[in-house]
């Protein structure tokens, strides 16, 4: 029978010098961390790289975890902060080398069927809509829709009261809906041009 260890027991093991115990934490949370990375980056390879960076950071900073919150709360806080930082760096790179982005966007489209093209366009609109949200709004959307956290858990990760977290999530969803409605309407109007 396999014995299951609590997060704090595993952390104690790691602090006692057993580095291999960290693998148990990685295996337990890798999917969750990867999901939030996908929410920020929308690309499997990049999300896997970010997942790796997050776990390395967690390992390096483990001494700073005092146990005031649960380990998962602390981990998800690192996830959203690193995701936001990664996006910021990505935006900066795009500003410095815009030609690379243009090439990437166009190289994905040619030769695809109309339906695929439409789906690609929808995904692009959603990605752009998410990017138009404020950093805090994007964080709560990812925590709620990708990590599937409850509002109470979300409040703890964000360091907010439950009311403030609910309000932030409500505003984030409203803004996202407004952007999506506007962008999809524009695309529907332009669709004949795309398809021709």
């Amino acid at each position, binding site marked *: 029978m396999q014995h299951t260890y609590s997060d704090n027991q595993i952390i104690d093991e790691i602090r006692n010098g057993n580095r291999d115990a960290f693998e148990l934490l*990685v295996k337990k949370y*890798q999917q969750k961390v990867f999901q939030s990375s996908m929410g920020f980056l929308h690309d499997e390879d990049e999300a*896997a790289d970010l*997942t*790796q960076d997050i776990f*390395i950071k967690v390992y390096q900073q483990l001494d700073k975890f005092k146990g005031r919150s649960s380990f998962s709360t602390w981990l998800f806080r690192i996830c959203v902060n690193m995701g936001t930082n990664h996006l910021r760096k990505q935006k900066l790179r795009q500003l410095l080398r815009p030609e690379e982005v243009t090439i990437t966007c166009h190289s994905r489209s040619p030769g695809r069927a109309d339906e695929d093209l439409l789906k690609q366009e929808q995904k692009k609109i959603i990605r752009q809509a998410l990017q138009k949200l404020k950093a805090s709004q994007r964080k709560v959307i990812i925590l709620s829709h990708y990590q599937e956290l409850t509002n109470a858990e979300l409040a703890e990760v964000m360091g907010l009261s439950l009311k403030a977290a609910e309000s932030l999530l409500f505003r984030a969803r409203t803004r996202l*809906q407004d952007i999506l*409605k506007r962008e*999809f*309407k524009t695309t529907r109007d332009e669709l004949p041009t795309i398809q021709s």
Partner: protein
Amino acid sequence: MNCQQYRAELTTVKKRDELSDAANQHLRSCSRCKALSQSYNHFLEFADAEKSTEVSPFIATRIMAAIAADEAEQISAIVPWLRVIAVTLTLTIGFTFAYLSDKRQIVMADLLITDYFNVERNAFEIETAWIEEIQPENNIY
């Protein structure tokens, strides 16, 4: 249910099937809310698809290898500094011993000069005393 109430409900749910019957009924009769709902549903489907993407089963091995490599790199970064510290320490100890033994000789040389200029003793006695003091085994007298 009016549009405002529908919007409020849509904004609080995580999934489309969480909407109440009243909201669904309103949706069937309102084209404005239908457009809003459709565009939002695209996002919910998109998020569901991304969320269900499975992480590579080798990610844990990859992470552990990266951590091991990172630690090895940290150790290899310390090694040159350890070498510098070891060399500095050796040189410091060497120079300290050299200085201390040299200091003993300086004290003796000072004594010798004082004695040499001491008019009450002649040079022969001074040299004899020095030979006896410094190299007693070479004393031929």
